[in-house]
C-alpha cells in the first residue's frame, strides 16, 4: 500500500481539475459511509425504544418511517415495572449515581494534591515516585481484583456499607492516570508565579489552594469527566466489588438482562438508552474538556 508512483507535477489542465473533483467526491462518499455506520445503530436503538413491543419484535425499526407509532410504555416498564422481569432500572440508576459521585470526587482531590507535590516541591526521589505511579497505569486491574476483594472481606461491609468498597476500588484504580494527567497540566504552569508566592512566604498548602487550584480547573474538569465516564460505564469493577444484587449499577443489570432476556428488545432498547443518556449529556456538554484531556493524556504524555 505504501508504494506510491513517482510524483509527477500535476498539470493544471482540465484532466487535473476533473481528478481533483473526483477525489473530493470520493472523500465525501467515504466520510458519509463512515458517519452512517457510526450513527445508524444508535439511531435504530433509539427509535426502537419508543415503538410498541409488538412492533419491535415483529418487524425492523426502519418500518417506523412508514408506520410511525410512538409509546412510552417501554420506558415506564423498564424503569418502574414491578414484575421480576421488568428491570426496575430506576433503582439501578440511583445505584449508579451513588457509586459514581464519590468515585469521581475522591480521585480528583487526591490526584491534584499528589500532582502538585510531584510538580512543585523539591525532594530527593521525586522523579522516581512519579515514574512509579506513571508505570502503575499499565498494571491491568485484573491483577488487583482477587486480593483486593479478600482485603475488603476483612471488614465484612454489608448492605449500603458495601458502596464504600467500590468507591475505594475505583479511587485506587484512578490514581495512576489522574496523577499523570494533572501533573502534565500542573508542571506547565508558569514557575515564576509559584516562586513569587514562595518568596512572599506562602506555604505550599496556601499556594495549592489559592494559586494553583484556580488555574487548573480545566484540567480537573477533564479528569473528572474521564473518571465519570469510566465509573458510570464500568462493568468489571462493579461485578467484582458490589456483592448484593440490589446495589449493582445499571451496567451490571443491563448485562444481566442482555444475557437472560436477550429477546426482550422492548426492554433492552429502552434500558440501554436509560444507561446511555447521562454520559451522553455529560459528554456533549463538556466535550471540549474531554478532548483536551485525551490530547494531554496521549500525545503530550
Amino acid at each position, binding site marked *: 500500500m505504501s508504494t*506510491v508512483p513517482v*510524483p509527477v*507535477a*500535476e498539470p493544471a489542465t482540465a484532466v487535473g481539475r476533473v*481528478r481533483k473533483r473526483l*477525489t473530493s467526491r470520493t472523500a*465525501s462518499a467515504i*466520510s458519509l459511509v*463512515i458517519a452512517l455506520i*457510526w*450513527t445508524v*445503530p*444508535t439511531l*435504530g436503538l433509539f427509535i426502537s425504544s419508543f415503538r410498541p413491543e409488538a412492533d*419491535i419484535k*415483529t418487524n*425492523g*425499526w426502519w418500518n417506523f418511517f412508514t408506520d410511525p407509532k410512538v409509546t412510552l410504555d417501554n420506558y415506564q416498564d423498564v424503569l*418502574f415495572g414491578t414484575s421480576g422481569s421488568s428491570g426496575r432500572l430506576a*433503582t439501578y440508576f*440511583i445505584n449508579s449515581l451513588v457509586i459514581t*459521585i*464519590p468515585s469521581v*470526587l*475522591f480521585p480528583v*482531590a487526591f490526584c491534584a*494534591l499528589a500532582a*502538585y*507535590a510531584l510538580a512543585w*516541591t523539591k525532594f*530527593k526521589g521525586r*522523579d522516581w515516585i512519579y*515514574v512509579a505511579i*506513571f*508505570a502503575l497505569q*499499565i*498494571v491491568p486491574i*485484573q*491483577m488487583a481484583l*482477587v486480593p*483486593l476483594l479478600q482485603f475488603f472481606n476483612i471488614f465484612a461491609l454489608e448492605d*449500603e456499607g458495601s*458502596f464504600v468498597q467500590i468507591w475505594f476500588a475505583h479511587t485506587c484504580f484512578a*490514581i495512576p492516570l489522574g496523577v499523570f494527567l494533572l501533573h502534565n497540566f500542573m508542571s506547565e504552569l508558569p514557575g515564576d508565579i509559584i516562586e513569587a508566592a514562595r518568596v512572599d512566604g506562602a*506555604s*505550599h498548602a*496556601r499556594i495549592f*489552594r489559592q494559586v494553583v487550584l484556580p488555574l487548573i480547573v480545566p484540567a480537573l474538569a477533564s479528569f473528572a469527566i474521564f473518571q465519570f465516564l469510566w465509573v458510570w*460505564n464500568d462493568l468489571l469493577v462493579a461485578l467484582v466489588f458490589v456483592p448484593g444484587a*440490589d446495589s449493582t449499577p445499571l451496567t451490571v443489570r*443491563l448485562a444481566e438482562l*442482555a444475557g437472560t432476556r436477550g429477546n426482550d*428488545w422492548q426492554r433492552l*432498547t429502552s*434500558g440501554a438508552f436509560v444507561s446511555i443518556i447521562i454520559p*451522553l449529556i455529560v459528554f456533549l456538554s463538556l*466535550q471540549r474538556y474531554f478532548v483536551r484531556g485525551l490530547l494531554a493524556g*496521549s*500525545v503530550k*504524555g
Partner: protein
Amino acid sequence: MLDMAVEGPKLLMLLYGVIGFFAIVGLLLLALDKVSGRRDRWVALGFLTPALLLVTIGLVIPAIRTFIFSFMDADSSDFVGLDNYAWIFTQPETRKVLGNTALWVVLVPTVATTVGLVYAVVVDRAKFEGLAKSLIFMPMAISFVGAGIIWKFVYAYRDPEVADKQIGLLSQVVVWLGMKPANWLLEPPWNTLFLIVVLVWIQAGFAMVILSAAIKAIPAEITEAARIDGVTPWQMFWRVTVPSIRPALVVVVVTISIASLKLFDIVRTMTGGRFDTNVLAHEMYVQAFDSYDDGRGSALAVFLFLLVTPIVFYQVRQFRKRRQEAM
C-alpha cells in the same frame, strides 16, 4: 414508582460519602497548613500520602499477591509450581482464548486507527467538521455494555422459516442483497469478528480525535511546499501527512492495543464468552469469580500483565527522553 424505603438508605450513603469527602480533604488541607517547615520533603509527603497509600493498598500489594497466587492452587493453600501457566498454554479451550485475544489485538488497533485516520483526513477543514467529528466520537461516551446491546440489536436474527421479517439491521441488509441471514453471534469463527466490530466502533473516535489534532499541528509551510510541488492528495497523504503524525499514530495504536487486550465487557454482554468467543480478560473473570479458582485466575492476570509490560518500558523511556530534552 420508586420505593423510598429502599432508595432512602442508599441516598443517605451517598450523602455520607460526600460529607466524608469534604471532611477528609478539609482536614488534610488544614493539617498541611500547619506543616510550616521550610523543608519541602515533609510537605510533599503530606500531599502525596493519600495517593501513595491508595495505590499501595489497591494496586501494589494486590499485584504482588496475585503474582504469588498464580503459583498456588485454586484456594491458595498449596504451591503448584507452574501448573496454572501450563494450563493456559496446553488446554484446547484456553488456546482458543489466546487465539481470539490475538485476533482482537491485531484487528482492533489496525482497523480502528485506519478508520479514524481516514475520517480525520477527509473531514479536515470540511464544512460541518465539528459535527462530523462529534458523530464518530459519540460512541466513546457509551458504555461497552450499551454498545454491546446496540450491536446485538443490529445482529438480531430471526429464522426465516418461522418469521417473515427481520428485526436486525444486518440481517435485513443481507436479505435486501438477496442472501440468507445467519445467526451472526452463534457461528464461529465469524462471531468473534462481529464482536470485534463493536470495539472498532468505539475506539475509532478516539483514534480520530488524536490524529485529527496531530494533522492540524502539521506546519502549514510543509503542506504548502508540497502543494506547490504539485503532489496529488494520495501522495500528500503518504509522503507528508503520515510521516508528520507518526508519534501520534504510535500512541493511538499502543493505547487501543492495550484496550483490546483487556477487553471484557463486550464479550460478557454479547455472548458471555460462549460459542468460541472467549478472550483472556473474560476467562480471567470466569476462573476467579465464577469457578473460584484463584490460581488460574491469577495466572491469567499475570499473563495479561506480562503482555502489556513491554509497552510500559517503551513509554517510560519516551518519558525520560523528553525530560532530558527539556533540561
